[in-house]
């Protein structure tokens, strides 16, 4: 069985840190810079970075449509920090949330803290860098963790988005969640294909 292929959006940001975590967990990865990089992905990561730069890069490359199609087809997604912003209603519109950018303040307010996230295996050390929070969300969105009363980790269907950076803190449980989902999807796709051939 081939490992699932995870696309990591590589317009700008800490995409290499995500690639390192995913490869350590046994995934095959592909950096995504143009629409031609999207075909055949079993999962997607939208990394941390500058959300304005990422927004203009997605527009320049014509990536918004292909990314929406990929995710609406049920492909699992992990978004971290700027990735959470990219997924909200005002950007790609894939997650029923409104993100507040730089919600904790400028860099001098950036911090790390212990976060309890029972849905994904319990406590973890979370690094927040000029981080957003979820200002508002729809009913279908499950809040997994909060800081100061504001949601900083949410899940809706196959989309998991967090305001912090598991990729730079040696935390692998969120990537494991993605890989588990992507693996299931990858197997389903190959079953359908094999079933189709047998008929």
């Amino acid at each position, binding site marked *: 069985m081939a490992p699932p292929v995870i696309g990591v959006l590589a317009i700008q940001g800490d995409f290499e840190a995500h690639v390192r975590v995913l490869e350590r967990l046994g995934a095959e990865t592909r950096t995504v810079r143009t629409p031609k990089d999207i075909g055949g992905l079993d999962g997607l990561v939208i990394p941390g970075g500058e959300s*304005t730069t990422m927004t203009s890069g997605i527009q320049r490359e014509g990536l918004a449509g292909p990314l929406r199609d990929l995710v609406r087809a049920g492909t699992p997604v992990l978004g971290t920090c700027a990735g959470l912003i990219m997924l909200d209603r005002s950007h790609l519109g894939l997650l029923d949330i409104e993100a507040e950018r730089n919600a904790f303040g400028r*860099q001098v307010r950036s911090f790390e803290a212990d976060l309890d996230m029972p849905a994904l295996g319990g406590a973890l050390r979370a690094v927040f860098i000029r981080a957003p929070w979820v200002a508002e969300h729809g009913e279908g969105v499950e809040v997994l963790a909060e800081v100061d009363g504001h949601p900083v980790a949410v899940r809706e269907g196959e989309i998991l988005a967090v305001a912090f950076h598991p990729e730079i803190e040696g935390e692998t449980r969120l990537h494991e969640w993605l890989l588990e989902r992507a693996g299931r999807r990858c197997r389903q796709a190959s079953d359908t294909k094999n079933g189709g051939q047998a008929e």
Partner: protein
Amino acid sequence: MREESTFRVKSGLAEMLKGGVIMDVVSAEQARIAESAGAVAVMALERVPADIRAAGGVARMADPTKVEEIQQAVTIPVMAKARIGHFVEAQVLEALEVDYIDESEVLTPVDEAHHIDKWAFKVPFVCGATHLGEALRRIAEGAAMIRSKGEAGTGNVVEAVRHMRSIGGDIRRLGSLDKAELATAAKEHQAPLDLVRKVAEEGRLPVVMFSAGGIATPADAALMMRLGAEGVFVGSGIFKAEDPERTGAAIVEATTHFEDPARIAAASRDLGEAMAGLEISTVEAQGGLLQQRGW
């Protein structure tokens, strides 16, 4: 427990800037142009390096009003420069809550022996380096990000190339040494042994490394990325070009697609005049090189 300004939080911001372009700006209007061109951060300055060079005299930290004007104009991180060794300028910039401080050779140094103790600050620092030993000394002092110095304000990328080749080459050589040889290597580089060991083991600096100094075209930016830079600073190259907005956007595009010559070609088309460049020998004769500031 909540902790602000740990080293992971400081170096983490540099991680988020990777693959991006940091642009020098001298006004709110330029900051907005840089942001819409796709800059990951702006460097707030009184004058761009080419004008500092032309003006001569002592170059200092920017006026706080200017820094605040630029902070209010954009939502991307705002960096600002302090003079080498001038820890009070750095404290002022920290009080203004800039997102990164560049302890920079582009300004006139105030201390000929000591750099700022960067561990004492909540705001992270980026520092210039011409070679590996210099980079590691700055990291030992608390720098959370390194940039090759190049020769600022010249539009000539030759010095940035020299510095990136030197740092990259020395990192590769450290990786080939026997463990017993690392102590002597640390002595030669005049750098702490623990950092030298870490570099030898990991084959990279322990913090993010950008390139700076003389980058003026999309191809220049891509060249620095190919030589191992994780992003670029463009100073005079944007707002001394004929069409700053398009030049800025083109350099951003080439930095993302630095391994794709066809995309660099597309980004380089019809940009108008790039900034006028200077020969390094001319600069040297007219008052010396900025890169020699810092120790």
